[in-house]
């Protein structure tokens, strides 16, 4: 499977069910990166001692444990966001598992393994953050950040008065707009491929 598609699909899988606020994007991206970093280090640490099927079981158990651990840590700082996101806070572990399943290359040192995996994680995070920022601006007319007492938002448009923005803020609106953007992206990419091929033919 195309690695890029898996990367973006798992980012969307993580972000679509979440309310379209940038604040939640920051929290989930942070969780994803921490789980990813801890997961990579853990795989490196246990691979000498545990092999075969047992290794996947141990890795999955660790990722779930790590998610619960980070959820508990978040309760200390943002309890209402933990209440709101609920099981969605366990989704980063799933995304990490999918990405590491695609990206299981042998690496000799921990540093090499981290730099290799964190490159994917960086692309994933950037895509997810831009996606959530656009959703926040288009749907809620604001840019929001996680705060001790809920979320802190810089509101520049009262989106509740604009039906189209309300539609974009809803989950069906998000799915439809994301699909339209994906179709447009594929269409533009195809056009560029055609132009590129035509250029090569001319040279010949």
């Amino acid at each position, binding site marked *: 499977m195309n690695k890029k598609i898996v990367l973006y699909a798992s980012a969307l899988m993580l972000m679509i069910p979440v309310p379209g606020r940038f604040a939640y994007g920051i929290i989930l991206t942070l969780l994803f990166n921490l789980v990813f970093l801890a997961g990579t280090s853990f795989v490196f640490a246990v691979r000498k001692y545990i092999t075969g099927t047992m290794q996947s079981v141990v890795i999955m*158990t660790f990722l779930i444990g790590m998610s619960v*651990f980070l959820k508990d840590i978040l309760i200390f700082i943002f309890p209402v966001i933990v*209440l709101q996101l609920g099981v969605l806070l366990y989704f980063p572990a799933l995304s990490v598992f999918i990405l590491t399943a695609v990206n299981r290359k042998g690496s000799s040192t921990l540093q090499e393994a981290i730099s290799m995996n964190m490159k994917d994680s960086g692309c994933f995070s950037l895509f997810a953050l831009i996606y959530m920022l656009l959703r926040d601006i288009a749907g809620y007319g604001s840019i929001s950040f996680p705060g001790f*007492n809920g*979320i802190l938002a810089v509101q520049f448009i*009262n989106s509740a008065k604009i039906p189209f923005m*309300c539609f974009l803020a809803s*989950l*069906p609106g998000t799915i439809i707009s994301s699909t339209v953007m994906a179709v447009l992206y594929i269409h533009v990419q195809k056009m560029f491929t055609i132009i590129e091929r035509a250029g090569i033919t001319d040279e010949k």
Partner: protein
Amino acid sequence: MLNDANKKTLKEYGIFMAFLCGMLILLMLLTFFAQKFWVSGLRRQVSSVLELYEPGAYTVTDYVSLKTPLDSSAASFVLKNKNGKSKNPVYGIIIRIMTVYGPMPAVFTYDTSQEPEFIGFACLTQDMSDRVKGISLNSTIQYWKKRIPLLFTVAEAVHE
């Protein structure tokens, strides 16, 4: 007799069990310490939503443990009615409900002699909260209005 393959399997299972036990102990301890922050953070939220929609009407007091698995997605508190209208206990509940905008923390008040009343959503502006309320009023909000009294049949007040 243990051959090398069995020894290796036993060693792997041993490491896994030790790891699992260590992780469970750590998580239980962390969950225990996080409980206090969970209660105080959600109490602040219930209080601020009540102040926004019904200013000066209630004071949020004791935490009420719901004694159901929903305790991880809801929290309830005893409310002190400042106007002294009701003689029955009044509760303030913050609960995650699914809306067309994704999961939202909804605040209800529940006077045990009446149906629960929806107050508003935390983490949303008043206009946006009213918009989400308009869409969810006949579906999820109605569902939770019927469900909340059932939760309180096993609830137990925790006085701090």
